[in-house]
């Protein structure tokens, strides 16, 4: 005790010279004092934790507005998720159950509680395919989800690669040729639905594309090559599950084909995904620029840009370095704002191109439930898919908002004042 006391410097001697009768009473106080001194001043442990947490504390002190905003958004998100679940419960358990009077329904509160806890704890039930095979819903969706994620990532990347420079340049040079053509494009393409555009792409690019890619035997689009192509090139490889087209290590066909070194297949998959991504991007860029252009114009009117011009900073540098940096949070916010529309566009494109994606699955399940004995057959699938899509939209919008605010704190105070 005394040895360790020496090693702890001045902390231990305070507890040592206590009288014998009061030792038992003073032990907890002494321990508390030791603990406080130990953690605050001397020990290597406290130094380590101090190093670890001090930047966090400083960050919180500096960005307390964002932290408060994040907490508020998180509380809101809980309310939103419960709201989504209530809407789903109303549609599937109240309305659909009242249509089929076979089961005696639970009382509303018990039923709602069961529904919500089942969804939130991941008890998503099973799906019977053709009335025989029962697969857990999560596993089944897992077969389809990578296709959608891959397509969405490519489409978003292409859209932003186009929208960022075009939007910035047209906002900078207001009224020039590029600006007016961008305005015309956003006006025209808003009412050119992706479904019609992708149908037209299939109509006019179908044969040339198939001939070019070498996948021209009984091909309907999709993502993987057709069965005819496989039969010419040595059959289905062992790493593709023939029932659900699930590619083996990761599930993302672009990655897996490269993983196994199937480069001819990789090329076909890449071409197919690129065509779909371009169809999505053509529609989404128009929508995105409609939201983002006015914000860009406002951002490029900032005082410091005028000051920079007066100091003789070259115009190009002002545009791409100064205004371009200021516009980034606005664009991130716009992604969150328009992500719901992006998902609608992608689901129509997946439907037209027969992609094995989750959004295609949503529409297909919706269509199937119309013919196969009412809603009950595909109920679990529809509920889980809709819930997942809504949660993804929610999370993307919240994360985009918070990232945008972290990048541009002045904007947050504007928002607190009541700007958009």
């Amino acid at each position, binding site marked *: 005790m005394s040895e360790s006391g020496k090693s702890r410097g001045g902390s231990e001697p305070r507890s040592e010279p206590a009288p014998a009768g009061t030792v038992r009473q003073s032990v907890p106080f002494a321990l508390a004092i030791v603990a406080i001194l130990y953690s605050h001043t001397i020990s290597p442990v406290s130094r380590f934790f101090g190093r670890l947490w001090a930047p966090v504390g400083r960050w919180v002190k500096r960005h307390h507005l964002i932290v408060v905003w994040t907490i508020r958004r998180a509380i*809101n998100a809980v309310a939103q998720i419960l709201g989504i679940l209530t809407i789903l419960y109303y549609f599937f358990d109240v*309305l659909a159950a009242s249509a089929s009077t076979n089961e005696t329904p639970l009382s509303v509160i018990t039923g709602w509680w069961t529904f919500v806890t089942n969804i939130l704890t991941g008890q998503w039930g099973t799906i019977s395919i053709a009335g025989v095979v029962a697969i857990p819903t999560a596993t089944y969706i897992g077969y389809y989800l990578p296709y959608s994620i891959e397509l969405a990532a490519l489409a978003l990347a292409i859209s932003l690669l186009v929208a960022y420079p075009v939007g910035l340049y047209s906002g900078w040079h207001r009224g020039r040729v590029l600006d007016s053509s961008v305005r015309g494009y956003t006006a025209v393409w808003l009412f050119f639905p992706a*479904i019609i555009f992708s149908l037209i792409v299939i109509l006019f690019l179908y044969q040339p594309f198939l001939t070019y890619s070498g996948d021209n035997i009984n091909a309907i689009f999709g993502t993987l090559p057709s069965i005819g192509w496989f039969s010419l090139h040595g059959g289905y490889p062992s790493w593709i599950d023939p029932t659900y087209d699930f590619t083996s290590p990761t599930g993302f066909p672009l990655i897996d084909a490269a993983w196994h070194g199937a480069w001819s297949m990789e090329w076909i998959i890449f071409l197919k995904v690129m065509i779909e991504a371009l169809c999505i991007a053509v529609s989404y860029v128009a929508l995105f620029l409609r939201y983002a252009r006015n914000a860009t114009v406002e951002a490029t009117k900032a005082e410091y840009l005028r000051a920079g011009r007066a100091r003789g900073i070259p115009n190009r540098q002002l545009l791409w370095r100064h205004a371009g940096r200021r516009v980034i949070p606005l664009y991130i916010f716009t992604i969150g704002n328009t992500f719901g*529309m992006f998902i609608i566009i992608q689901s129509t494109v997946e*439907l037209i191109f027969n992609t094995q994606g989750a959004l295609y699955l949503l*529409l297909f399940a919706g269509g199937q439930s119309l013919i196969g004995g009412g809603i009950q057959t595909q109920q679990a699938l529809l509920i889980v898919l809709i819930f997942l*899509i809504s949660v993804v939209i929610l999370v993307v919008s919240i994360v985009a908002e918070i990232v945008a605010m972290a990048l541009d704190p002045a904007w947050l105070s504007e928002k607190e004042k009541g700007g958009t």
Partner: protein
Amino acid sequence: MSSPSRSYLRRRVGQYLHHTELMLGTTILGLYVLLALVAWIYYRGGLSSMEFHIRVMAYGPSPPTISFFPFSLGPYTLGQTGLFGFNVLEGLIKATPWDLMLFAGIIIPTCLIGLVIGVVAGGTGSFVDDALMTFTDVILSVPPFVVALLVFVVILPGLPTSQAPLLFVAAMILINWAPYARVVRARARTIASKPFVEAAAASGAGRLRILFRHILPNSYSPMLSQVPITLANLIIILTVIPYVGIETSQQYINVVSFMPAINFPEWTWILVNGMIGFSPIISTNAWWAYTFPFLCIFAFGLGVQLFCDGLEDYLSPQSGSRTH
């Protein structure tokens, strides 16, 4: 006495007439209203049904029968659609009054609900603001498309088909007001901190009077830029969902669209018929069956967009000096 106001009116009307965007939009929408009136007068008896020929599945749709030398219209002036064999021109004209009613019946109540909720939230602040905006966020996180799919799949099969359009309108009103409430609330919050509102409160105006006489008239214009997006969403929903119903089931089903009958004239329903006709699986290359319905919808959307953007610009305070 009346000369200042008359000159003000004359100036505003002059601005309206010289506003290219607004005038173009007004003209296009006016032509559509005129077309609706013509249809209402011309097809007085049978405005709610088109004639259809299932036979077209076997023989293929008729191409446009219009000829210019010598000029004659023929029975199928703009051709025939693939699936049910609707007459494209007749269908589009008959559909005009229904579609104008449908879109106006959805968008105007949506705007009103969003306006009231946004003004109350932004003008009141504090607890009411937080509660209303949380509710708005809940509605915002569910895409209208998903709600339409749910209504189509869950409710519609159990209802008499005559109630389908009303149900669609109600569902779309209930789900679409949220973005309007958001933009109006943002504007109302900035307006509420303006000096003239404080002056009104200081001179003894009541809370409701401040909300609806002072804040509301100044905060509805940003709503207009949202209208074309809602319209585009509605058109996507009305096009995609019947397409899903037909394509995935691959057989005749009793619920095919939100309309009361399969031969009910509606622009997007005619468009879906045209698209089914030329999908690569059933490849009959009937370009007329999707081109003309698409152009009809597209021109209407463009008109609405020009009208709304122009009106927003016209109503904004610095109306004379446009920013772009």
